[in-house]
């Protein structure tokens, strides 16, 4: 097996500051960035912090920015990177804990705000769903919650102030999945427009570019959601129809029914 010498520039630091440290070491053929990070830990910097679990691209723990691109360390082969230093930095959008490890709890807070799945009362013979009705949502179930899409999304990456009112691509696929679910009765369109910041996304597709599960986040979730929002809020014919039938437009709260937004886990309740 052939070996080559590589120069790694790894971010070392915490909330108080940090810098790129240089590590030169041998990398074997077929290795991924995470292998090399582990060898640095084993041979040169035992206190280097990194998070990982599966080394198979399935747990979503090892997210980092490799040569400036949000990627999974365990799925990025060393021999696919260009010659020269390999720069490894923590995800930019989330606060750093130490070295390559960031605190991604922003995402868990956002998750709590998604109005929950609400099926109708169960029929006597139980719920039934057909495969054609459920298949669109299945793509979104592939998500491994690596949060690379959240990291790359410029709405919060470059504008911290948008975080409070923005769900982000990972949760737009969740909204889309629920909206397309054949048994769900909630209508989240006004919610996603007014409270989850769907309008902030300018469909520049970086989330789709980085998703290691190749989920077509923009084409299959965000744009369909935007079109649903047009149905609900920006379609003059639908508006006229509501006027004629003297139907009031529901507030986002009414539209999502009386369903609790995960009351039990909501820290604000």
């Amino acid at each position, binding site marked *: 097996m052939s070996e080559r010498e590589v120069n790694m520039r790894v*971010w070392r*630091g915490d*909330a108080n*500051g940090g810098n790129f440290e240089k590590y030169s070491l041998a990398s074997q053929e077929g290795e991924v960035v995470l292998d090399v990070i582990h060898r640095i830990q084993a041979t040169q910097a035992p206190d280097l912090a990194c998070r990982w679990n599966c080394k198979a691209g399935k747990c979503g723990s090892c997210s980092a*920015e490799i*040569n*400036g*691109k949000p990627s999974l360390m365990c799925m990025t082969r060393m021999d696919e990177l*260009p010659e020269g230093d390999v*720069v490894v*930095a923590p*995800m*930019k*959008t989330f*606060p*750093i804990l130490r070295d390559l490890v*960031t*605190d991604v709890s*922003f995402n868990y*807070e956002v998750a709590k705000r998604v*109005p929950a799945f609400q099926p109708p009362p169960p029929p006597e013979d139980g719920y039934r769903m*057909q495969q*054609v*009705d459920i298949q669109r949502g299945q793509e979104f179930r592939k998500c491994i919650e690596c949060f690379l899409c959240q990291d790359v999304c410029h*709405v919060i990456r*470059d*504008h*911290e*102030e948008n*975080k*409070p*009112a923005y769900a982000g691509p990972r949760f737009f696929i969740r909204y889309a999945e629920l909206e397309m679910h*054949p048994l769900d009765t909630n209508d989240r369109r006004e*919610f996603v427009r007014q*409270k989850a*910041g769907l*309008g*902030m*996304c*300018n*469909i*520049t597709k*970086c989330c789709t570019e980085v998703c290691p599960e190749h989920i*077509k986040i923009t*084409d299959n979730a965000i*744009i*369909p959601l*935007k*079109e*649903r*929002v*047009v149905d609900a809020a*920006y379609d003059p014919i639908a508006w006229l129809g509501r006027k004629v039938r003297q139907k009031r437009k529901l*507030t986002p*709260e009414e539209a*999502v029914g009386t369903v609790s*937004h995960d009351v039990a886990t*909501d820290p*604000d*309740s």
Partner: protein
Amino acid sequence: MTSVENASVTPVTLGGTRGGPDTTTLRRDHWWLQPAVTFSVLTSFVVYSSWAAFVNKDYYVGAQAHRDLLSPFYSPCITSSCVPGSHPSHVITWWSLSPALLILIVPLGFRLTCYYYRKAYYRSFWWSPPACGVADAHGSYSGESRFPLILQNVHRWFFYLGLILNVILTIDAIMAFREPGIGIGVSVGTLVLCANAAFLWVYSISCHACRHLCGGQVKRFSEHPLRYRLWKIVTPLNARHMQIAWTSLVFVALTDLYVRLVASGVIHDPRLF
């Protein structure tokens, strides 16, 4: 219970100190290449089409040349200043500028609000962001949630108008088989107009609004088999919307150029059969 209206905001403290490297980008590849190419091609198109729309001549090859070729930039030619033979009988008389300026509102609005072109110009013209992992060039950002960009939501209405235009351009393409004084025939110009109409149809059909209206908006496909079938036809085209958008954009400009060159006598439109 937390109601939607008073749902508290995600504490910004979660943002906390980011702590990682604070740079515009750490990318080491040629990330600027794609926005640069997009910028150049779109700018060239805008410059060419503005010139073509303002010059107000050489957009129609008529009976003298035994042809019936109308540039897509000037179709339907509905103002009284249109050259004879190029327009239908009901015309707008109060418009004195180039008819193209009136007609191009529809394709311009359709392309400007297209989900793909939005991505293209937000990245290459507005740098918001120029490329993935490269910092947005603006201090504050509200995306498409406020005026004027909230108007992007009218895309669907331009889609409908675009369909009407496609029908008109298809009629133009059929008319291009007429060779006044000779009969019916096929020239290079006929094929150019036919291909242009075909590309525009594919562009419209692959549109995201079309995909939604065909079937994307239904919750249960099993209850709408016809709409499901339509959705299944549109979906693979929709996945290639970017490529189709570029092809049809370039082709529409080439179609205008071809008609223009023939109309101005620079080239002759060869008859094929």
